[in-house]
């Protein structure tokens, strides 16, 4: 499997990046090298193996449904690029 610059542009949209044509060319070369390396995985037969998603065999811990956080919205919003009256400002999405 290899990726052409158009497919790179498509993947870029998925992760919210944008590339010039030159950039897409550069990335497609490097990504194809990486994918070729990654495909060495196919040398190992893994048919009956259960996938492992995490190093721990554990259940997620539950806690009591009580309030543990205080209202810190001013502090948390102080680093936002644009905010007003407790709201984060973004370009208009609904006309």
């Amino acid at each position, binding site marked *: 499997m290899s990726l052409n610059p158009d497919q790179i542009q498509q993947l*870029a949209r998925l992760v919210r*990046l944008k590339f010039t044509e030159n950039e897409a060319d550069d990335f497609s070369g490097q990504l194809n090298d990486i994918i070729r390396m*990654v*495909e060495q995985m196919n040398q190992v037969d893994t048919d009956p193996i259960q996938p492992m998603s995490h190093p721990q065999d554990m259940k997620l811990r539950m806690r009591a449904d009580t309030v543990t956080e205080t209202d810190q919205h001013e502090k948390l919003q102080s*680093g936002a690029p644009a905010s007003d009256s407790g709201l984060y400002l973004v370009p208009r*999405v609904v006309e």
Partner: protein
Amino acid sequence: MECRTVLEHSKALRGKEYSSLELTQAMLERAQSCASLNAYITLSPEVALKQASTADKLIGKGKAGPLTGIPLVHKDLFCTKDVRTTCGSRILDNFISPYNATLVEKLQQAGMVMLGKANMDEFAMGSSTENSYYGPTRNPWDHERVPGGSSGGSAAAVAARLAPVATGTDTGGSIRQPAALCGLSGIKPSYGRVSRYGMVAFASSLDQGGVMALTSEDCAYVLQAISGFDEKDSTSVNQAVPDYIHSLSEPISGKIIGLPREFFADGVDKPVSQAIRESISVLEQLGARIVDIELPNSAAAIPCYYVLAPAEASSNLARFDGVRYGHRASEYSDIVDMYESTRSEGFGPEVKRRLLIGAYVLSIGYFEAYYVKAQKLRRLIADDFSKAFEQCDVIVGPTTPTTAFPIGQKTDDPVQMYLNDIFTNSANLAGLPAMSIPSGFDNQGLPIGLHLIGKYLDEATILNIAHQYQLHTDWHQRIPEGYA
């Protein structure tokens, strides 16, 4: 004074040989005179001097712990509320965390003094600290070479004696590989041992915080302070932390050391394999028994890791959207363009590569072939370790196949760069504790690292073996020229 270990400083501070304030000032001055190393992203003199005077008061009252008043550097992906946390990225250039990471909080409680934040590969993605928005860090042993990465700023700072100890994080080798390349002792504890709360996430099932220092003994003291259950981290292990310091002094006779055939194959530079074999003889002379073991799926670790880590990263890094914190592009046409422009300006090339790979291996049609396949290999790799540990207490080999490489040598070839992690990333996939300690030098005077992998939650044994090795060798006492 600057070249001492944590424990030597600790003794001197409590013996009133010098104060924490004097030590801190000397370290801050040293950092400025060594600015060309680019070990720091941010120096924090105000915080440091304040913490040092608090420490001096405690020492004066006789209330000092072993770490009180000792200066340290944090890798710049631990959130600190008094100093910005950039993760080596433009996208977080102006980010001030509203809270401290648990690790930061614990070391502050222990009385340690934060000198500043260390340089790193952007979002910990890299093996050379060349992928930083703030420029590459240089290796104190040879300024034209990389210090390793991603915790390269931490490694360079300790190797150059700008601080006796630094924190780091390790997702695929990012503590151990720079420790090896800079001649340090560095430990990545078991997954879940050290809280990840406030550690900016790269690959959440692999990331683990740890310590880089001049000796294994220093690592043990700092690891003791940062380990333990934290309810703020959903994957934190709720088990008692053993006394790492107490077990350092145990004899290692009778300990069984496994040598995986796969870690001594072709591709390891001769001076490295020679130094590792000599280190193994030292351990044998100390009474350890050596057995040959097999880790048959080792070769799959790199491909497996470079599917899983980017997949997790592409999801974790979705949070950087220019809305809630961090950089936002100044020009955009609509909200999607705002996201795309912000992220394209904010992330460097290696982060972008990994986001693309992550999106690819998770996309419909490729998910089974790549992501699920890698998860199955992860199980095989973890099972190999379980089987090997039925025969031995610890697994030993080289940390890296080569010593430090020249700056710029591998930047255009990501796959070559990834191969640096060939011996380190299987411990992350399996969640095992692992460490690197200095074990010799090549003919260019560059340090070589011995890699020790322990059983899950058994940091104590690798620290014990490392400490006993260091009592009988002096590789860890060498100082790079010009930094004595």
